[in-house]
C-alpha cells in the first residue's frame, strides 16, 4: 500500500506527539539508571499514580468547568508534586536500604514496588477505567489539505519542549546537575570529591518522577482513560526507548523515544495494529544484538 501524502503528515504529527510522551518517561528511566545502574521498574507506576493524583485534584477543584491554561498548569503541578513525593518515598524506603546489596535483589525489589503500586492502586481507586477530565478544549488550529494541527498536539509538543529545556538547564547549568553528572560518571570518585551521593540520587528521583508526572497529564489529555495498569505497557516501551538510545544518555533517550513513537505510529497505520506491542521488543532485540550500547551510548571496555 502506498501511503497517501495527506495521511503521511498526519501520522508524522501523531507519531511525534506519542514520541514526546515516551521521551518524558524514558528520561526518568535513563537518569535513574545513570546514577544507580538500576532499572526502576516502579517508574511506570509512579507515572500511573501521577495520572490519578491529577484526576482527583482536578475533579475536586472543578478544573474541567473552566478548561484552559490555568487548569492545565494546576493539573501539571499536582501531578508533578505527587510523583516527586512518591519518588522520594520509594527511594528512601525501598532502594536505599539495598544500596550495597547484589543487583538482582534491587531489581526484584523494584519489581515488588511496581506490583505494590499497581495492586495498591486497584484497591484504592478500583480496577475500572476512569475518564480523565478535559482540561483544554481540543480544536483545530491549522487546517491544510495535508494535515490538521490540533490544540492537543501543540500542547503536548509545547509542554514537552518546555520540560526538556528546564531539564537541560537543571542538568547542565546548575551545581546539582553537575554533581548528578559526576555521580553518573563514577559514584566512588564523586563521593571522594565531597558530593553527597544520597542527595544527588534523591534529586534524580525527583527530576525523573516530575517528568513522569508531566507525561501522565499529557497522556490523560490525549487518551482520556486512566486505570491502575496503564503504566505497564507504556513503561516498558519507554524503557525500550531508553535502551534504544543508549541507557544513561539523556539525548539518547529523547532520540530513542521519537524513533519508538514514529515507528509505532507508522506500523499501526500501514501494517497491522496487532504488531504494535511486538514491534517495541523486536526493535529492542535487534538493537541490542547489533549495537548493545544503544544508538548514543558509550562503548564500555571491560578491564580486569
Amino acid at each position, binding site marked *: 500500500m502506498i501511503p497517501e501524502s495527506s495521511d503521511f503528515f498526519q501520522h508524522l504529527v501523531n507519531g511525534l506527539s506519542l514520541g514526546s510522551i515516551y521521551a518524558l518517561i524514558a528520561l526518568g528511566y535513563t537518569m535513574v539508571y545513570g546514577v544507580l545502574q538500576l532499572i526502576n521498574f516502579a517508574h511506570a507506576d509512579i507515572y500511573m499514580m501521577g495520572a490519578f493524583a491529577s484526576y482527583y485534584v482536578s475533579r475536586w477543584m472543578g478544573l474541567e468547568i473552566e478548561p484552559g491554561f490555568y487548569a492545565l498548569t494546576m493539573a501539571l503541578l499536582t501531578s508533578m508534586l505527587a510523583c516527586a513525593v512518591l519518588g522520594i518515598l520509594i527511594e528512601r524506603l525501598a532502594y536505599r536500604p539495598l544500596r550495597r546489596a547484589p543487583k538482582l535483589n534491587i531489581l526484584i525489589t523494584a519489581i515488588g514496588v511496581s506490583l505494590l503500586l499497581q495492586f495498591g492502586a486497584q484497591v484504592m481507586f478500583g480496577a475500572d477505567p476512569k475518564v480523565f477530565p478535559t482540561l483544554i478544549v481540543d480544536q483545530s488550529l491549522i487546517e491544510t489539505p495535508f494535515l490538521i494541527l490540533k490544540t492537543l498536539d501543540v500542547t503536548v509538543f509545547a509542554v514537552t519542549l518546555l520540560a526538556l529545556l528546564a531539564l537541560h538547564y537543571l542538568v547542565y547549568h546548575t551545581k546539582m546537575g553537575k554533581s548528578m553528572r559526576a555521580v553518573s560518571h563514577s559514584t566512588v570518585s564523586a563521593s571522594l570529591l565531597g558530593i553527597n551521593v544520597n542527595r544527588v540520587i534523591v534529586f534524580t528521583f525527583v527530576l525523573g518522577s516530575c517528568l513522569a508526572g508531566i507525561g501522565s497529564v499529557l497522556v490523560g489529555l490525549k487518551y482520556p482513560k486512566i486505570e491502575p495498569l496503564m503504566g505497564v505497557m507504556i513503561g516498558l516501551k519507554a524503557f525500550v526507548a531508553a535502551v534504544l538510545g543508549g541507557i544513561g544518555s539523556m539525548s539518547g533517550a529523547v532520540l530513542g523515544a521519537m524513533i519508538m513513537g514514529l515507528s509505532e505510529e507508522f506500523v499501526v497505520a500501514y501494517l497491522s495494529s496487532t504488531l504494535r*506491542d511486538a514491534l517495541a*521488543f*523486536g526493535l529492542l532485540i535487534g538493537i*541490542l544484538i547489533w549495537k*548493545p550500547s544503544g544508538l548514543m551510548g558509550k562503548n564500555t571496555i571491560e578491564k*580486569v
Partner: protein
Amino acid sequence: MNPKIRNPLLLVVGIVIVGVVLQFSINAYIQILILQIMMYSIAAMGLNLVNGYTGQFSLGHAGFMAVGAYTSAYLSQIFPGFLESTHLLGFFLFSILSGCLAAVFGYAVGLPSLRLKGDYLAIVTLGFGEILRVTLLNIDTLGAARGITGIVPYPELGFLDRFWVSFVYISIWFFISLYAVWRLTRGRHGRQFLSVREDEVAALSLGLNTTHIKVKSFVIASFLAGIAGSIYAHLISIVSPSVFGFMMSVNIVVMVVLGGMGSFSGCILAAAFVTVAPELLRSLQSITGFDLRMVLFSLSLILIMIFRPQGLFGSKEIPDLWRSWKAKKL
C-alpha cells in the same frame, strides 16, 4: 541392601505413601495446589540453574513454559486417541517433546542474547516472552486469544483416580528434575556454571568457553520449563496466551530468589510459598472486603529483599541446615 537400589526404592515407597495420605486426608482444592507447587518447582529448579548457578538474569521463563504447554496441548488436540490408547506413556512422550521444543527455543534465544549481561539480558528475555505471547495471540490454529481448551487431562487407571495418577506422574518428573539438577550442579558442569557466575573473565582465561556454558544452562532450564508447561496443560486443561505473561515469569524468578539463589530445596519451599500465600490470603479478603492478596504479596517480597537479601536458605540446602543444627545440638 545396596544404596544404589535402596534409595530409588525408598523414593517409590515414599511417593506411594505420601500419595495415599494426600488422597484420603485432604480435599480436592489442596490436592490441586500441591500438584501446582510441584509443577512450579520443576520450572523454578531449571531457572535456578540460570539465575542462581550461572548468574545470568532471565525474566522470560514463562515464554518457555508457554512453548511446552502449547506443544502438549496442540499434540493432544491433533492426536486425540493417542493418549487414551497409550495410558501414561503417551503423556511422557508429549512431555518430552514439549521439553525438547522449549529447549530448541531456549537455544535460539540464548545463543544471541547471552552475549549480553545483567539488566540487558533481563530485558531481552522479557522481550522474548512478550513477543512469543503476541505471536500466540495471532496464530489462529493455536486458538489465538482464546487459547486451547479441553486438553486431555490425566486419565483414571484401573482403581486409581485422577488425582493419584496426576500425583504419581508429576512426582516422577519432579524427582527426575531434582536428581538431574542435583547431579549436574555437583559435578564438572556445576563448577563451570559457578565459575561463570563468580568471575566470567577468570573463567575465560582458564580456557572455558563461557558462552557455551551459559547457553548450556539456559537450554537445560528451558527444557525443564517446557516439561512444567506440558504438565500445566494437562493439569489445568486450558492454555491461553494471557496466562504466560510477565507475571508468571516474575513469579518463577521470585521463587528462585526467595528460596536463595543456588538452593534447590529453598526454591521448592519458595514455590510452595508463592503458590499458597495468595490462596491463604483469600480468607482475609472476606474480612476486609478488599482484594489485599497481591498487595501483601508484593509488600512481603520487598521486605524479604531488604531484611533477608540472600533468600530464605542462601546457597544452602535443607540437609546442610539439618546437619549444622544437629552439630550445634551435640
